[in-house]
């Protein structure tokens, strides 16, 4: 293990810290108290860098065909070197900024202010802060190195427990509210003064999750199998599970309160967009970057059909075209029209494949956003001022504008879309899409009319996406062009990609992570796009099949990777004998 490599890995960790500091993210998360007032989000970020750098630096490697695994003590030493490099870089930057003059640095990097230096320097003088950073980096690095060499039965529960505790601290806006709704007084767990966990609460959660994780590692598989057998063999058990699950889902908005229900509503709108885009991208393999066109179309069509009015400087005016339909009458019309728009967008680009298709759809999506804010279409859709008075989808006097009510309306449509996607996936149509995605020419030769199935994919995806738009219009009641920009297309794409292209649970997870988390943690709001960008790149490099992969799709994406090492790994997994090569250190212990 060369020192050069260790230092390099450490420096990458240090650069990551400097990056989050200079973008302003570090200062933002410094406001989050995770545990007490001592463990803030910023300090966790500062600590994670050397730890992870060391953890990665000392991972077992294959050298000359042999697996080289460091002993605990040497790993700790190496980790300390990497951690020192990470911490040292940050310390050096701190000293440099102070010496060079913070004002001069700030002329370029506007986030570098005295407050940031305080955060990075632990509210000490610069020299002491730099010392803490370097020494702390070395210590954490040593810990990271040692942790890597720990045996998996110990390492996993510890890692899980620390992760769960930090997550519990991060979810300080959800957990206490739900506990209060359940009638549990939670002051001993979450301190009202700091918003975060109390030290006692953190300790209890740590111990609890450690125990659970340890038990799960020992008995989890057996327990899961037992439950599965019961559910499979006893129909009544299945019904009970179903009732319990729907009961839990039905009480979510009541449990979580209006603020979180509001976020959940947005999450579900994007779930619909993700499900629609998943049909186009995941099933049919057509990369559509103009999905915002359907979102915008659905929203504005719903507004126009249900009596929305234009915002003007003096009040409101009737649009050039408008109807006064009920939401439930309008929604099928919107879907049909959107399917038509899908055909219109799809038709000219049928012959294009891959990247060209992406750019053309991007252009078409941009055209829609430009048009809805243009002066030309102002009499129809209100231009920059937009529209208001969209229906609230009321049903016998029950309005769905309220976030807690909107949840149920959105849930119905999400379930419908999930059902449609699920049935489509394995239908004749879905198989045709798969074939087309994997090799268009072969599919064509096998008698699949690629023209027809491409159009069908655009139309179906468009219809589902327009429902997302229509519900969005119902949810917020008024529309402005700012909600319909290219970023919607990219967010929907990120949702699909993060979860795994072609995977329905993937879309659900993707929407919860990408829309839900930033919505709940308002500190992250302005860094959302930065995080999406980083997520798209890293998912594509590290795990192209996504978090919850579709099995067939992941096989296709990994085809290139099936090398001899892979084969050896699989053999080892099957026979339980460690393979001669490859990173099989995980299971052997």
């Amino acid at each position, binding site marked *: 293990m060369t020192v050069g490599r260790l230092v390099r890995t450490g420096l990458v960790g240090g650069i990551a810290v400097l990056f989050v500091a200079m973008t302003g993210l570090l200062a933002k998360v410094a406001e989050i108290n995770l545990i007490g007032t001592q463990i803030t989000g910023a300090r966790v970020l500062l600590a994670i860098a050397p730890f992870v750098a060391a953890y990665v630096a000392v991972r077992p490697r294959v050298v000359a065909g042999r697996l080289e695994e460091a002993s605990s003590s040497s790993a700790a030493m190496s980790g300390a070197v990497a951690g020192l490099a990470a911490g040292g870089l940050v310390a050096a930057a701190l000293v440099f900024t102070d010496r060079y003059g913070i004002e001069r640095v700030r002329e370029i990097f506007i986030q570098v202010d005295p407050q940031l230096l305080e955060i990075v320097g632990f509210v000490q003088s610069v020299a002491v802060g730099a010392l803490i950073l370097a020494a702390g980096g070395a210590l954490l690095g040593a810990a990271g190195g040692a942790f890597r060499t720990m045996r998996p039965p110990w390492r996993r529960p510890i890692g899980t427990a620390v992760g769960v505790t930090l997550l519990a601290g991060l979810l300080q806006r959800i957990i206490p509210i739900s506990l209060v709704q359940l009638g549990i007084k939670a002051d001993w767990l979450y301190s009202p003064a700091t918003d975060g966990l109390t030290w006692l609460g953190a300790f209890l959660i740590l111990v609890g999750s450690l125990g659970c994780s340890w038990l799960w590692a020992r008995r989890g598989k057996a327990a899961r199998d037992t439950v599965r057998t019961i559910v499979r063999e006893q129909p009544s058990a299945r019904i009970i599970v179903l009732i319990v699950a729907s009961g839990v889902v039905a009480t979510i908005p009541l449990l979580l309160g209006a603020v979180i229900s509001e976020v959940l509503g947005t999450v579900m709108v994007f779930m619909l967009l993700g499900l629609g885009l998943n049909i186009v991208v995941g099933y049919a393999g057509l990369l559509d970057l103009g999905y915002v066109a359907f979102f915008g179309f659905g929203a504005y069509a719903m507004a126009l059909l249900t009596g929305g009015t234009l915002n003007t400087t003096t009040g409101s005016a009737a649009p050039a075209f408008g109807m006064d339909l009920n939401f439930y009458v309008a929604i099928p019309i919107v879907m049909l029209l959107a399917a038509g728009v899908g055909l219109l967008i799809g038709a000219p680009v049928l012959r294009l494949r891959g990247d060209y298709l992406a750019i053309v759809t991007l252009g078409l999506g941009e055209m829609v956003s430009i048009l809805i804010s243009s002066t*030309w279409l102002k009499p129809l859709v209100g231009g920059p001022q937009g529209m208001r008075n969209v229906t609230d989808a009321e049903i016998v006097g029950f309005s769905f504008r309220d976030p807690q009510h909107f949840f149920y309306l959105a849930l119905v449509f999400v379930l419908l879309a999930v059902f449609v996607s699920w049935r489509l996936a394995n239908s004749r149509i879905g198989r045709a899409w798969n074939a087309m995605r994997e090799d268009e020419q072969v599919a064509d030769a096998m008698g699949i009319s690629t023209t027809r199935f491409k159009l069908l994919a655009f139309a179906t995806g468009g219809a589902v996406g327009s429902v997302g738009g229509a519900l969005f219009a119902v949810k917020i009641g008024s529309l402005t062009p700012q909600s319909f920009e290219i970023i919607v297309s990219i967010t929907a794409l990120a949702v699909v990609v993060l979860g795994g292209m072609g995977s329905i649970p993937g879309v659900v997870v993707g929407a919860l992570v990408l829309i839900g988390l930033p919505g709940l943690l308002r500190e992250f709001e302005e860094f959302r796009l930065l995080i999406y960008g980083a997520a798209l790149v890293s998912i594509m490099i590290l795990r192209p099949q996504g978090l919850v992969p579709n099995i067939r799709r992941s096989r296709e994406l990994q085809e290139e990777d099936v090398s001899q090492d892979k084969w050896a790994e699989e053999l080892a997994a099957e026979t339980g004998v460690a393979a001669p090569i490859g990173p099989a250190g995980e299971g052997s212990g």
Partner: protein
Amino acid sequence: VANASTPGDDTTTVVRMSAFDRLPLRRMVLVGLSVAIAVFVIWGSWKTLDAKAYSGAAWREFVILGIAQGAILALIALGYTLVYGILRMINFAHGEVFMAGAFGSYFFSAAYTRSGFMDRHPIPALLILFLTAIVTSVTVAVLLERIAYRPLRNSPRLVPLITAIGASLFLQNTARGFFGTQTRGYAKPQILAGDWTILGISIARIQVVVFVVSVVAMIVLQVFVSRTKTGKSMRAVAEDQEIASLMGIDVDRIVVTTFAIGGVLAGVAGVLFALTFEQVNFFMGVRPGIAAFTAAVLGGIGSIGGAALGGFLLGLLQSIGPALLLTGIGVPSPFQLKDVVTFAVLVLVLIFRPGGLLGAGGAEKV
């Protein structure tokens, strides 16, 4: 038309084809579409010219503006085309490389303007601006290739494209975080203010500079690619990566070089753009990036001459098109729809001539 089976031959399956597949519907639609477009163009232009909405001087302004902007688009388009030629991927983040160059030079420009160096010694100051922009852009482009694209060299085509979109978003928002959301004024030296009279026409100095610098950069690029050893290696890699590597060409090095050259051109374009519009912001790479890509496609992606031609053509279309086509038929503020013209051109080129104007004319199936 497959039911040509002889009677009594029961082994032949009758393949039914629907009317949709049998009719040359696509051709009919295309012919109809092109007729509709021609009618629209002629009608719109006629109405505008008939109404005498703009004076002759205004049209001349449009043309000059179009050429100047086209020159910048051409420089960016070359970056797309070079990378596409070699890796067959759309470097979606190229617009951000351009933005990085403009931002990199901004800080020097601001400092020089404040100290007065800019107006006292405009030529060295401008050279330093170009240099810093080039260095920044090249750094970003090379890092992009190394970190984001190289690990995905042999993945399915959608994977690098999605990565590129992610990288674009990431770079944009990095700039937003580092430098803030506000638009910053980018002062140009006194020497570039005002007009020059050339052949009896008075043209803004900055537009002359933009044109000259771009054309020089393009000529240098053309010479580099056709004459130098590296340029020849680039063409060899574009032709066939595997064979090129067998002939002793270091493909990785050539790919990096290509990204770096794209970065140089983007940096130059960044300074020219900033000097023309006298401002920079983190979002400035998006629309020019898409427009430049359109220009590359219009000229024939993968071809250097095509990118240059496409850039100038699109610049002209953007500056003349909305005024000429939309004013007469009563569309208010037609220049809001400038980018609609861009995208319409892109879609039409891809429908009618996917190979681009100088490309293989649709022979390459895209």
